[in-house]
């Protein structure tokens, strides 16, 4: 018999009213203050300011309009705002790293502003290309979906995670289109050009 450990609490969908507990003003009332994740990088944070926009589509091509979109990223120098990052003492000023965006109830649009993250150390001292870590919650999603968004104007060829994706043409599902300092993405939950989702 293998050694038994207590099992992780099982996941359930966040449901359609996830905003009540996470972004009450989106739900239509003033509740918890401050609302968390409203500034990934404050105005005093150095680095390149960027705008990101996109949508998450279901299998029919319809945008998911009751989605909660969470971002976790490193600062412009590739440092995470977390005690286990060995360089955290050098984290940029006015930088949080965590963001939350609700999809627009009408068209499903997701929009946020942040600073472009720097490359992050990976395993075995291999550098990872700059990326945003993304966590998706919504009605119909039983276990929150994890993925990454990379930048189309960066050299992503050496990124160890992208290199794992086979067939290689699926790598592009994680790469945002670049237009100056504006980046855009489409995440497809299912079907043709389905986005690569991660288990880690």
């Amino acid at each position, binding site marked *: 018999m293998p050694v038994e450990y207590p099992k992780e609490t099982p996941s359930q969908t966040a449901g359609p009213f996830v905003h009540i507990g996470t972004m009450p003003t989106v739900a239509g009332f003033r509740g918890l203050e401050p609302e968390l994740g409203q500034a990934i990088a404050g105005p005093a944070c150095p680095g390149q300011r960027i705008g990101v926009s996109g949508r998450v589509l279901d299998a029919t091509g319809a945008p998911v309009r009751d989605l909660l979109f969470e971002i976790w990223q490193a600062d412009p120098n590739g440092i995470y705002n977390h005690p286990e990052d060995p360089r955290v003492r050098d984290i940029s000023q006015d930088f949080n790293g965590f963001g939350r965006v609700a999809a627009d109830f009408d068209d499903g649009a997701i929009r946020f502003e942040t600073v472009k993250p720097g490359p992050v150390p990976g395993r075995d001292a291999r550098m990872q290309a700059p990326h945003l870590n993304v966590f998706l919650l919504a009605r119909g*999603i039983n276990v929150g979906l994890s993925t990454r968004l990379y930048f189309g104007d960066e050299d992503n060829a050496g990124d160890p995670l992208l290199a794992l994706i086979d067939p290689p043409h699926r790598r592009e599902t994680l790469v945002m289109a670049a237009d100056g300092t504006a980046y855009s993405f489409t995440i497809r939950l299912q079907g043709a050009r389905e986005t690569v989702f991660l288990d880690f």
Partner: protein
Amino acid sequence: MSAPYIPRDRRWHPPAHTPDYKTSVTRSPRLPLLSVEQSLSEITGPTFGHTALGPRDADLIHNFTGAPAIGERILVHGRVTDENLRPVAGALLEVWQANAAGRYRHVNDGYLAPLDPNFSGCGRCLTGADGSYTLRTIKPGAYPFRNHGNSWRMAHIHFSIFGAGLAQRLVTQMYFEGDPLRDQDPIAQTLPDPAALDRLVAPLDLNASIPLDSLAYRFDITLRGRRQTPFENRPEGA
């Protein structure tokens, strides 16, 4: 970098595609998840301090207008530990729920049951050094949803949990002991193993109740633990 987290057992969690819960049909990836080793990106994650919370955030009976909400007064309490039974201190728990009538305070909830003017249904708290937490609220009502012709949700409280890193991020629902809708609820039934659903059912906890004031339910939460072996701790970065 510290030891990585123990891999998630995805046969214990609900599968993505659970057709009896209709919304999952178009919102479930059909291609396999890509398994990746954990880097700093997955081992780190958002952390929150007490300054992030308001003084009444954990008291849903009073935290909307100050006047008490209508319904069955309860405490919900428990401990957050990891798979190695270590307490998870400083975990952020965010909760949301319907009121006693099964109605949510949300612009998109059109259920005919009324709102309670003194109940918002949102709250949050941080776990203490021993992983413990306590919330005060009213017991939510069951409510119907458009799934099968006559689908009703068990009474439940939604929980969102931030542990120490992204790998521990978890969103789930707490149910109540003895709920007769258990076998009918298509979302509760997305769990393949009844033992997993048992883990989400909070038992009545009379010892924690406040006499002449509130009943109590106990909901313990387990997050992923970290590997114990000292090997393979490769240097991170330079």
